[in-house]
C-alpha cells in the first residue's frame, strides 16, 4: 500500500523546473487519479521530456523506413539498433547529441556525450569498435567559439582515447548559426555475434536489479529537462556531468566478461538522461513488467541526498544489470575483479509499476506505461516565409572571380574545407588494429578480423543546405553519407541519425523538422537504407535564434572483400580523371557563395534516381578493380575535390583544358549532389565508359593525374602551395590566427 499525501497544484516555477506544461501536469494527475507528489513530478517531467519521451518528434519519426532483411533490431526497441553484416556478425550503432552540456562546459560536455553513446553500445553486449563525431561550431574568429571548439575536441579525445575505442571519422562545420549552441553528435559502432545480442529488458518477476559503477551524486540533475528547453546559457554548470573514462573502461570490460562467462545477466541498461529513472522505467517497459527500487541501497557520493535527487541524478558511468534471481553474486564477482562497486538495489515485479522506496517508505508509485508513453504533439506544417527570401539566387548580381587561383586558395583554407588533421590527430584513430582507411578519407574503413570483410562508416549533414531547403537537406544527408561509403567500394546497409533542430513549438523549426524527415525518408527508400536508431535534439537556439536545421546521418556500409577497396587519393601519374554523375554544379548554398560573396542563398537540388545510379556505378567499378581513386565531390565543388585527391595521393592535377560550359565559378566551385571524382589508368577508359553507359550515368573527362602543380582551367598553383593553405586553414583558425592569404 502506498500513501500519497495530497499536494497543491505546483507553481509555474516548479513546473518549469521539471519541464512540464500545466496541461501536462493535469493530464498526469488525471492518469493517476491523484496529484503526483514532488518525486513523482520530477520522474514524470524527466520521462516526458523531449530527450526521453520524443513528444514532439515521435509522430514524425515513424515516416522513416525502418525495415529490411538486414535489420536485426530497429529504432526504439533497444539502446541501439543492430544490422546483420553476414558471417553471423552484427553491427550495433547509434548516434546521440550532447549539444546543451557542451555549450556550457565543452570539455566535459563532449566527453560525457562519448561516454553515454559507448554505454548504449556495450549494453547490447557488443564491443565498441569505432567512434565518429559530427561537430558544428560557431565562428572561430571569436574567442568563445574557439574555447568551445577546442574544449569539445579535447573532451572527445580524452574520453575515447582512454577507452581504447578509435575515433575514425566525423565531420566539422563552422557557421555563425551555431554560435552559442555548438552541436556535438557522437556515434558509436559495436561488433557482436548475433547470438550474443543482449536486451535491455527487465523481465521475470523476482530477478534482481544491480546498480554498478560510479556512486550516485548530485551532478547532472535535470540534464534531460535542461536539454529540452531553450536557452542553455541560463542554466548552470551543476547540470553538466563530469566523466571518468577509466571507470567506463572497467565497466566495459567487466560487462563483456560477465556476458561471455555466465548466463546470469538477463538485461543490461545504461544510466543516461534522468539516470535511474529512465533506466529502470525503460527496462521494465521493454519487459512489460514493473520494478521495485530500494534507494537506501544506492551508493551515494554525497550525504543527505533525497529520493528525488537519487532518482534524477545523472552521475556518469553507471549501469543497471538485471540478474537472474539468486545469481547476482555471480555477476558481482566479476565486477569485484575489475574493482567496481555494485549493489543489489531492487527487483523485477509483475505489478507494472515503478515502485520507489526509501528505507521502506514509499517515495513514488507510478505506472510504467504512463511514463513510457509520453504525450505527443503535432503541429501544422506551414512553409515559413524566409524560404522565399533566401531563394532563388540571382546569378547576374554576382561577379565572377577576378583571380580564380586566389579564390581557390581562399576556399581551401576555409575552416569548412581545410584539412581536419588538426582535430583527428588528437584522437587515437588506430587502436583496435582495424583501421584501414583512417580519418581524412570519404568514409572510414575498418576490417573485421577473421573475415574477408570490412565496414565503412561515414557521418554527414549539411545545415546550410537544410536551411535553404529542408527536404533537400534531409535527403542530401542520407545521399552523401551513403555516397561516401560507396566511394570506398562498400554497399550502404543502414543508418542511424541525430536530428538537431530549434524549438518545435516555433512554426519554422517544426516545418524544417517535418520536411527534413520527409527528405531523409525519400532518400533512405531510394537507397534501401533503413534507419535502425537515432536521437532527437530540439530547442537548439540561443538568444531566440534557432540554429540551422541540422540532420546528421551516420551510415554503415559493408565491403565484402577488403582487397577490393578504393581510397580518395590519386595513385598514379598519367591516370585519367573524370567526374561521374549527372549533378549540375550550382552556386546555390555553396561554400564558395558564402566565402566569396557572404551569401547564404539559393535552392539546392537533389535527384535520387541519379544518386542511386552513380553510387551503383562507382561500387561496380571498384569491385571490378578499374578505379585508382574515388572521391565524393561536395563542399567547395570540383576544384576542391580534385585538390583533396591530389593532396591525399601527393600527385598533381593536369586539367588546364577543363570544359567550362557556363560560368567559370559554377564549374570550378559550384556544388551538387550525385557527383564522384574518379581516376583510372588509360587502359581502363573503355571499360569505365561502358559501365557508365550501362548505368546511364554521364561521365565528364577532366584531365590527368601528374606533375607537381594543380592546374584546373585557369587555376594554376604549385601542389605544395595549395596543400599548405589547405593543411593550415583549420589549424590557424583553431589557434586564433587568421587564415593565410
Amino acid at each position: 500500500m502506498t500513501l500519497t499525501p495530497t499536494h497543491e497544484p505546483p507553481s509555474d516555477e516548479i513546473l518549469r523546473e521539471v519541464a512540464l506544461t500545466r496541461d501536462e501536469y493535469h493530464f498526469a494527475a488525471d492518469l493517476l487519479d491523484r496529484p503526483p507528489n514532488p518525486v513523482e513530478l520530477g520522474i514524470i517531467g524527466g520521462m516526458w521530456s523531449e530527450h526521453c519521451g520524443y513528444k514532439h518528434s515521435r509522430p514524425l519519426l515513424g515516416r522513416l523506413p525502418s525495415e529490411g532483411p538486414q535489420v536485426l533490431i530497429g529504432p526504439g526497441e533497444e539502446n541501439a539498433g543492430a544490422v546483420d553484416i553476414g558471417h553471423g556478425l552484427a553491427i550495433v550503432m547509434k548516434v546521440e547529441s550532447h549539444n546543451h552540456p557542451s555549450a556550457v562546459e565543452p570539455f566535459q560536455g563532449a566527453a560525457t556525450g562519448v561516454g553515454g553513446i559507448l554505454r548504449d553500445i556495450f549494453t547490447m553486449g557488443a564491443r565498441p569498435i569505432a567512434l565518429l563525431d559530427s561537430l558544428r561550431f560557431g565562428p572561430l574568429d571569436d574567442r568563445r567559439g574557439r574555447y568551445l571548439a577546442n574544449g569539445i575536441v579535447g573532451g572527445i579525445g580524452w574520453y575515447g582515447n582512454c577507452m581504447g575505442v578509435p575515433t575514425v571519422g566525423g565531420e566539422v562545420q563552422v557557421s555563425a548559426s551555431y554560435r552559442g549552441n555548438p552541436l556535438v553528435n557522437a556515434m558509436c559502432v559495436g561488433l557482436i555475434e548475433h547470438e550474443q545480442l543482449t536486451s535491455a529488458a527487465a523481465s521475470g518477476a523476482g530477478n534482481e536489479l544491480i546498480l554498478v559503477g560510479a556512486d550516485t551524486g548530485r551532478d547532472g540533475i535535470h540534464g534531460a529537462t535542461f536539454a529540452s528547453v531553450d536557452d542553455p546559457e541560463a542554466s548552470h554548470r551543476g547540470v553538466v556531468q563530469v566523466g571518468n573514462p577509466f571507470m567506463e573502461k572497467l565497466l566495459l570490460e567487466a560487462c563483456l566478461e560477465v556476458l561471455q562467462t555466465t548466463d546470469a545477466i538477463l538485461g543490461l541498461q545504461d544510466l543516461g538522461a534522468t539516470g535511474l529513472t529512465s533506466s529502470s522505467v525503460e527496462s521494465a517497459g521493454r519487459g512489460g513488467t514493473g520494478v521495485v527500487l530500494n534507494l537506501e541501497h544506492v551508493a551515494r557520493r554525497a550525504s543527505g541526498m533525497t529520493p528525488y535527487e537519487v532518482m534524477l541524478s545523472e552521475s556518469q558511468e553507471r549501469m543497471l544489470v538485471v540478474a537472474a534471481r539468486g545469481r547476482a553474486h555471480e555477476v558481482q564477482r566479476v565486477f569485484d575483479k575489475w574493482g567496481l562497486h555494485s549493489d543489489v538495489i531492487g527487483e523485477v515485479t509483475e505489478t507494472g509499476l515503478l515502485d520507489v522506496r526509501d528505507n521502506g517508505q514509499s517515495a513514488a508509485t507510478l505506472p510504467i506505461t504512463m511514463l513510457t508513453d509520453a504525450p505527443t504533439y503535432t503541429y501544422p506544417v506551414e512553409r515559413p516565409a524566409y524560404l522565399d527570401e533566401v531563394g532563388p539566387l540571382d546569378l547576374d548580381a554576382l561577379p565572377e572571380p577576378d583571380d580564380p587561383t586566389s579564390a581557390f586558395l581562399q576556399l581551401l583554407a576555409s575552416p569548412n574545407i581545410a584539412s581536419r588533421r588538426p582535430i583527428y590527430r588528437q584522437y587515437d584513430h588506430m587502436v583496435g588494429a582495424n583501421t584501414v582507411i583512417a580519418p581524412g578519407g570519404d568514409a572510414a574503413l575498418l576490417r573485421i578480423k577473421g573475415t574477408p570483410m570490412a565496414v565503412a562508416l561515414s557521418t554527414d549533414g549539411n545545415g546550410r543546405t537544410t536551411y535553404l531547403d529542408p527536404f533537400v537537406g534531409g535527403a542530401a544527408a542520407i545521399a552523401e553519407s551513403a555516397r561516401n561509403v560507396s566511394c570506398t567500394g562498400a554497399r550502404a546497409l543502414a543508418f542511424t541519425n541525430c536530428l538537431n533542430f530549434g524549438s518545435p513549438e516555433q512554426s519554422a523549426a517544426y516545418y524544417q523538422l517535418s520536411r527534413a524527415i520527409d527528405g531523409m525518408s525519400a532518400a533512405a527508400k531510394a537507397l534501401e537504407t533503413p534507419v535502425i536508431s537515432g536521437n532527437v535534439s530540439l530547442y537548439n537556439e540561443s538568444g531566440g535564434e534557432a540554429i540551422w536545421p541540422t540532420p546528421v546521418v551516420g551510415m554503415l556500409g559493408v565491403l565484402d572483400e577488403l582487397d577490393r577497396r578504393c581510397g580518395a587519393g590519386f595513385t598514379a601519374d598519367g591516370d585519367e580523371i573524370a567526374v561521374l554523375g549527372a549533378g549540375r554544379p550550382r552556386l546555390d548554398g555553396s561554400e564558395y557563395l558564402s566565402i566569396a560573396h557572404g551569401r547564404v542563398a539559393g535552392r539546392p537540388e537533389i535527384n535520387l534516381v541519379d544518386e542511386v545510379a552513380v553510387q551503383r556505378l562507382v561500387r561496380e567499378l571498384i569491385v571490378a578493380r578499374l578505379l585508382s581513386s574515388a572521391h565524393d565531390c561536395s563542399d567547395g565543388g570540383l576544384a576542391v575535390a580534385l585538390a583533396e585527391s591530389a593532396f591525399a595521393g601527393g600527385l598533381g592535377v593536369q586539367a588546364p583544358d577543363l570544359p567550362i560550359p557556363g560560368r567559370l565559378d559554377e564549374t570550378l566551385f559550384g556544388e551538387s549532389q550525385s557527383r564522384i571524382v574518379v581516376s583510372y589508368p588509360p587502359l581502363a577508359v573503355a571499360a569505365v565508359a561502358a559501365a557508365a553507359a550501362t548505368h546511364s550515368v554521364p561521365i565528364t573527362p577532366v584531365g590527368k593525374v601528374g606533375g607537381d602543380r594543380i592546374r584546373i582551367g585557369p587555376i594554376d598553383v604549385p601542389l605544395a602551395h595549395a596543400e599548405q593553405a589547405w593543411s593550415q586553414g583549420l589549424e590557424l583558425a583553431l589557434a586564433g590566427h587568421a587564415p593565410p592569404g
Partner: protein
Amino acid sequence: MKAAVVVFPGSNCDADTLHVLGTVAGMDARYAWHADTTLDDVDLVVLPGGFSHGDYLRTGAMAARAPIMTAVRDHAARGRPVLGICNGFQILLEAGLLPGAMLLNDSTQFRCEWTHLRVESTQTPCTSAAGNGQVLRLPIAHAEGNYVVDPDGLAQLHDQDRVVFRYVSPDGERSAGANPNGAVDDIAGICNAGRNVVGMMPHPERASEAELGGEDGRAIWESLLAAAGA
C-alpha cells in the same frame, strides 16, 4: 616462443598486441593479469599501451606497483626480454626498470600519427634483426611521450649505446620537425644496462600488417624471435 601481455585495469592495446604476437609473429601468446604473481612460463613479457589506472596520479605510476611487477622484475633480472610499448614504457620508467620520466608532449596535446624512427642500436632483443640505422615507419598515440632524463643519465644512455630508437625524418635524418613530442635528444626508445628491457613510445603492433598502412613493426617481432632462437 612463449609470450605474456600484461593486462592492467585501463590497458587498451592488450588485445592488439596479443593479436600481433600470436597471429602475425606466430608466438604462443597469452594474457597475464596485473594481480598475478608469476611469469615463470614465458620467454617474453610485453607491457602494452593504454591508460592503466586511467593515468591517474601519473601515467604508469599505479601500474608500476601492481603485484605482477615483482614477477616482471624477476623476469628482467634473469636477462629475459621485456618490452614496454607506450604506456608500457611509462610503467617501466615508473617501476625504475628504465631511467627517466615522461612529460606532456610539447604540443600539450595527444598526438596520433605516423612517425619515422631510426634504429640506433641493434644490441637489444627487440632490434637484433634490424639494420643499424634502419628507418622504421611506426605510429604514435600518446599525450605524454616527451621523454626527459637528467644530464648524467643521458650521458650514460649515450656512453652505453642504450638509445634504441630516435625520431627522424623519412630519409633518416634528425630534424626538429621529426620529433613529435619534444623528447630530449629525439629519443623514442631506450634499453636498460642489461639491454634486455626495452621501452618505446611508438606502436609496432599497429604497423605489422600491410592493410593497416605498414609492416615495419615486424622488425621488432622478428628480432625477438631471432634473439630467442640464438
